């Protein structure tokens, strides 16, 4: 039982990490960037190359991979979204062009790294584990859960309390009004993409480490779950995304253990459906204020 709770929290922290970066652009700015999962995947490979081929220590490779993710995010914005900005249907057309970009990046990953599942070299991270009340928790799992919580706190602070956060929210409210007030809309959006993709990269590297599994299709495993977590938690809410991530992880683990793996997604998305019927704005979401 204790072990299953740990398993659930761990799986949930992976979902939360993926969703937190995702929701900065999707939940706050209302831009659905479906290339997020491709950044997640490519940056896991970047870290893998740095550690495996250049023999860098993980502590050096991790920030570099995160930086690469951030830069890739800016590229995603410039290529898939910026040319379409200002069109009346920019959200939908941007979504479609981000699907195209995701497909291109995934194909590039397949071409560059091959279809085989790769793993980080043995001993990349210490293989120690601790025992907490009958449950065995590896140090990596503790670190991942902690990172998810810290990122949640930091992003909440960023969006609510900082200048950049205010500007992001202003752009989300009305790009035109923000521009009139002297906000450089393109730069704010690029900054949001940078942060979002850097977090996506961090999630990708940690996912690869946690499951010893880096493959060109790894992003697909969390893409839908990430969206579900954002909606379940409430659009734009960082604590919501984290809580929903943990809740989904726990729900999945107990469904698998008690009912079998075949029911996992049915139960997970069934609960999502139920929450949306009962609380249309998600667990922590506020009612939409920008109706008109």
């Amino acid at each position: 039982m204790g072990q299953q709770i740990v398993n659930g929290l761990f799986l949930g922290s992976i979902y939360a990490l993926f969703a937190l970066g995702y929701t900065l652009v999707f939940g706050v700015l209302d831009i659905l960037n479906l290339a997020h999962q491709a950044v997640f995947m490519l940056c896991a490979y970047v870290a893998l190359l740095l550690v495996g081929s250049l023999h860098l220590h993980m502590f050096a490779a991790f920030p570099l991979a995160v930086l690469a993710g951030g830069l890739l995010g800016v590229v995603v914005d410039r290529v898939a979204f910026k040319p379409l900005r200002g069109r009346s249907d920019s959200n939908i057309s941007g979504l479609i062009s981000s699907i195209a970009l995701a497909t291109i990046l995934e194909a590039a990953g397949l071409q560059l790294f091959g279809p085989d599942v790769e793993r980080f070299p043995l001993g990349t991270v210490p293989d120690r584990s601790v025992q907490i009340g009958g449950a065995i928790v590896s140090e990596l799992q503790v670190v991942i859960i902690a990172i998810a919580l810290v990122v949640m706190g930091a992003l909440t602070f960023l969006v609510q309390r900082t200048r950049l956060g205010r500007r992001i929210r202003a752009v989300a409210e009305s790009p035109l009004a923000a521009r009139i007030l002297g906000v450089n809309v393109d730069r704010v959006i690029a900054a949001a993409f940078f942060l979002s993709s850097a977090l996506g990269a961090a999630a990708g590297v940690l996912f690869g480490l946690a499951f010893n599994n880096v493959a060109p299709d790894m992003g697909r495993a969390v893409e839908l779950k990430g969206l579900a977590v954002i909606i379940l938690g409430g659009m734009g809410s960082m604590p919501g995304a984290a809580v929903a991530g943990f809740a989904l992880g726990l729900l999945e683990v107990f469904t698998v253990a008690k009912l079998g793996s075949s029911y996992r997604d049915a139960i997970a998305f069934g609960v999502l459906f139920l929450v949306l019927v009962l609380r249309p704005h998600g667990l922590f979401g506020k009612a939409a204020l920008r109706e008109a």
Partner: protein
Amino acid sequence: MRFAGRLTLVATSLLFAALQARAETVKIGAAFSITGNAAVYGAQQKAGVLLAVEEVNKSGKLKGITLEVIVEDDATSKEQGIAVFQRFINRDKVSAIIGPTLSTTATAADPIAQQSRAPVVAVSNTAPKGITDIGDYIWRVSLTEAQVIPSALQNARAKLGFKNAALLYGNDDVFTKAGFDVMKAALEKEGIPIVEIQTFATKDRDFNAQLTALKGKNPDFLMVSALAEQAAGIVTQARQLGWNVPIMGGNGFNSPAFIKNAGQAAEGVYVGTSWNKASPDPVNQAFIAAMKAKGNDPDQFCAQAYTGVLVIAEAIREAGMKGGRDDVKAGFAKVKDLPTPLGKFSFLPNRDGNHAAAIQVVKGGRFEIVQ
């Protein structure tokens, strides 16, 4: 009409062959998973087929006939498998097809060959049912899990003396599901109680929930039916949970990629195998040496693919040096005690292959045959 024309052509060319040793080319199509989920097997299979064709041609065993192999990627998908089979049959006019890699793909592609009366040699499909059952043009070199697992289980039990067992398997893949059915039947036949069964999906990477549930029942032995991709993750995560139960895997574990990806966690894992790599048989040793000379460390899939070509060559010889589709098919039935790296090979009346099986354990990062 075209068929008769073809026969005449073959007959004439044989006449010429007798007179002036004119070379006739017999085409073989090989459909393997070079990309996709089963790509770890495809590369080894391709290497095995290419070496065998080269050796058969060099040996002059098929007087006047040169084998030509066309390797195509089935991309581990049913759709692509069907497309490749159609290309082989209609465009390349091959005499026989080797492959595809996975049983799941075979259930989709093999019926096309059966309809077109093109013989197929399955070299890695191990699902007990639904492969050679497709029809009389579908033959199989690879032993089914039903042939390998029961003897491997008896072997492991004699060594480990476990009283009960738990099972974990992928329930959305033809091959892993079939492997599970065999494991369950073998355990029941041995009278070993099954304390818990858990499932996962092909795309899963997190198995902690299933493993924790299994560990909670405290079984003496764990049997796992999974593809190599998940096998490493399952074993690694089991050991990370501090669970040191002996594990026996199905055919999917049977790949160096499993050991590479599972690392230390792979140590002590048992796997049944249809290829006894340690066999001192000269045919086997020559095969390993030739493969290593090409810079490839062969695995079971490589040996089976290699054997697939030998079987086709033998069938052509048995058919009186005729390489038409029906000649090859008729020749298969006459293949008996053919020396191959897998041992003396024959076909059973149901067109499944038959030869001796073995069990191996991972030790020091490699598979070792358990004597």
